[in-house]
């Protein structure tokens, strides 16, 4: 079927990642309108399982997954394998880990 899916980057106002303390990285996907937020929730494009698959990590590393209605946001947090800024860590701020979520396909018929 054509045009029944859209990438998350076209639907969300903000898609970002950032340290949450020294041992975690948190991801925020924020929508401008309530309708879009509710649609993406219904589509199940982002679930605890799907975000771990996208990041190729074991689900035990996912510490939080929250649908945060006041800000029309889906928010999830993962444990780092080593604390931020350890030698070899290429993203001390955790600020460039969100890119794979730009391309997540959302079923617009949900």
């Amino acid at each position, binding site marked *: 079927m054509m045009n029944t899916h859209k990438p998350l980057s076209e639907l969300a106002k903000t898609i970002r990642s950032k340290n949450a303390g020294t041992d975690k990285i948190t991801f925020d996907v924020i929508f401008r309108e309530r309708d879009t937020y509710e649609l993406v929730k219904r589509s199940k494009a982002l679930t605890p399982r799907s975000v771990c698959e*996208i990041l190729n990590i074991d689900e035990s590393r996912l510490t939080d997954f929250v649908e945060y209605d006041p800000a029309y946001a889906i928010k999830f947090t993962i444990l780092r394998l080593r604390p931020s800024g350890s030698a070899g860590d290429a993203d001390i701020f955790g600020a460039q880990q969100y890119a794979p979520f730009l391309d997540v396909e959302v079923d617009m018929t949900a």
Partner: protein
Amino acid sequence: MASLKIICPNGHLGFAPLKTGSFHLGVAAKPDFIAADSGSDDIGPVPLGHDTCASPKAWQEHDLEEMLLAARKIGVPMMIGSAGDTGTNSRVDMYVQIIRDLAAKHDLPPFRIGWFYSEVSHDYVRAKIRGGSAITGLDAREDLTEEELDATSRIVAMAGVHPFRKLLEEGCDVIIGGRSSDSAIFAAAALHKGYPEAQSYYLGKVLECASFCAEPYGAKETVLGEITADHVEVTAMAPEQRCTVASVAGHAMYERSNPFHEYVAGGLLDMTHCHYDQVSEKTTRVTGMEFVPAPQFRVKLEGSGKVGERFVGMAGIRDPYTIANVDAVIDWARQQTVDRFGPDGWELHYSVFGRNGVMGDMEPLRDKPGHELCIVVQGVAPTREMAEEVTMTGTRQLFYARLPDVKGTAGGVSFVLDEVLAASPAYRWTLNHTMAVDDPLELFPTHTAMVGREGA
């Protein structure tokens, strides 16, 4: 209705200079306090462990000068937490000296400065462990062991409102804090003036990152928070920014794993039932916050331990066959280092940019490298001399890697520099824990002095 106003010009003072236009608009709005936090654990473990700043001193002086001159001009207290990025004792002393120098430079009338320290000794923490009071790990960490404590170079405790309130009660006009919970700086001012805990801590929470609670995005702009006994209102000072329901509610989740709860020394700010109203174009009002006092007084500790001296090397690759076999190239260089130095006692870290340098094993496209790669090599060893040689071996041997079918036999990688660069030593976060204390002030000794014309 009685209210109190605080402005915050910068979410991490000194990390990038505050924008003066919106700050001056904020000062013109006649705030009762001017406050900012200067710290973050975002900057990695090196500044804390090595006792350095993450930012140029000139940027920190710029922000402190703007804030000091404004605060003295309108006669309100200025409060700074987490001096010099980390809030170590040396950074507090540095900020106090900057304030003294600025007072002399501008010939300011006398004022009272207060400051407090946050460093915690190894002996103090060791006594807690041996006394059976566990140093509890946060974020899935184990409780602290003496072995890990011994591996730690420096420890700071995260102050709550208590040392700030003590210094306000002593009449300080300028306060320089050691490591501080950023929301506590603002909350202390509101609590000092008699406002309730829930609204006070929420005021701190919403102001701590300055214009990150406004839209459109634009950092280092001033925001103004106003508290009453019932609500908090937050207003963007930059002409192009607004504090909206979306931007203020959205800020509650910034840099934190849970958008509903904020833990501070002494309790928990619960934002689950917060209600947001747009009360004017640039202002959002928040009600419904709650504060839950903690059953036991626990203080967060941050600690950083030295791993070794560090150098950095770089190499580029353009040959598609070499790119397809980059892991074998790296294995070769690593093996040459093993042959030279033995299997342990040093570290080599390779980040392969153009393949998965930024995301490592989490990169979905790790099997689709670009047409050229940059390898960043980090070598770590006990001495600078050895770290330099480890890094040089791990970098230059990329050039000599033996791939069976390579056409280019004159050199396997490109070099921007045929040398390796001295970097900061490698440290790691050893403590992200909490510790029980009997007295909220015992880790945070306070001091005051007069500064300015007569008192200089």
